[in-house]
């Protein structure tokens, strides 16, 4: 495009146009940032609630079993010692999602599971503690998977939707 009027006028017009473009772009940018920020934050929060819940179910289950087992006042040094270890490991759990906590979580969970397995071994070796069946670790694992395993895609409360199996992907609810 060649100037058909004085350069000054054209430059002014160009500046004005570019300013306008920038203004519009910024307007859209802020809007996109804000609108989607809220949506994304909400989506992330839903996902965080779900993953948090799923990740701690089994630990809670172990804690519950431990309280019932401890109440049997079984006279066994190794059992009492391991119960105390599991309880202390559970007490040290933190709930945030920082890198540090996540790393701690994994090793802590491994220790808790192993100690709890040892407790079950001791318990199940002696059948006279009044538990009708052996407590099998896989049983707990299965329960927590079934409680946390599926999440219904949310439409409206009380209105059924198809079960969507939740495998680490985001679901709306």
């Amino acid at each position: 495009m060649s100037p058909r009027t004085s350069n000054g006028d054209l430059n002014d017009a160009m500046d004005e146009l570019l300013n306008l473009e920038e203004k519009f772009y910024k307007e859209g940018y802020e809007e996109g940032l804000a609108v989607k920020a809220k949506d994304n934050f909400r989506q992330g929060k839903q996902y965080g609630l779900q993953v948090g819940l799923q990740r701690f179910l089994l630990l809670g289950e172990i804690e519950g079993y431990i309280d019932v087992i401890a109440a049997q006042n079984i006279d066994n040094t190794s059992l009492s010692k391991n119960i105390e270890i599991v309880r202390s490991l559970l007490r040290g759990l933190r709930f945030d999602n920082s890198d540090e906590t996540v790393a701690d979580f994994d090793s802590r969970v491994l220790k808790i599971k192993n100690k709890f397995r040892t407790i079950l071994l001791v318990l199940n070796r002696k059948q006279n503690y009044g538990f009708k069946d052996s407590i099998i670790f896989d049983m707990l694992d299965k329960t927590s998977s079934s409680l946390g395993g599926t999440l219904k895609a949310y439409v409206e409360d009380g209105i059924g939707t198809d079960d969507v199996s939740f495998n680490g992907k985001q679901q709306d609810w």
Partner: protein
Amino acid sequence: MPDILDDVWESDGGEELKEPSSFDIKKLRDSHIKRGYLDGVTKSKDTNLQKGFNEGFPTGAEIGLKIGKLIGILQALNLKYGEEDDELRENLKLAQHELLIQKVLTKSMFDPDLNLQGEHVIVKKWISIVEMHCKNYSIDTRL
């Protein structure tokens, strides 16, 4: 030169520059707002997903730990006393149904910002039921 500039000047037939028409401005506006909007969306996505996740995670964790504990106590008690205690047996069955993740994480349990207002109603209900069984069998626990 972007097309948009041609648009602005295309109606210029005479010697003098015409003021861009309101239609041209609207086109310019739409196109740049859209471009900005998309960039804004991309920019915000990752950071805000992560921010939200980090905020929701601890609450989910606490609920999960609590639910797990409620179920764990009921299961363990059921293994020991379930044959004679019908209520305990029934409660375990019901708890396993009512404390499913899709029943616990529903909009009605949370405010519009997905925060719990006070205690979770279903969890609260089961805490008092499980406490009753614990008292019954002298289980020392903190729910």
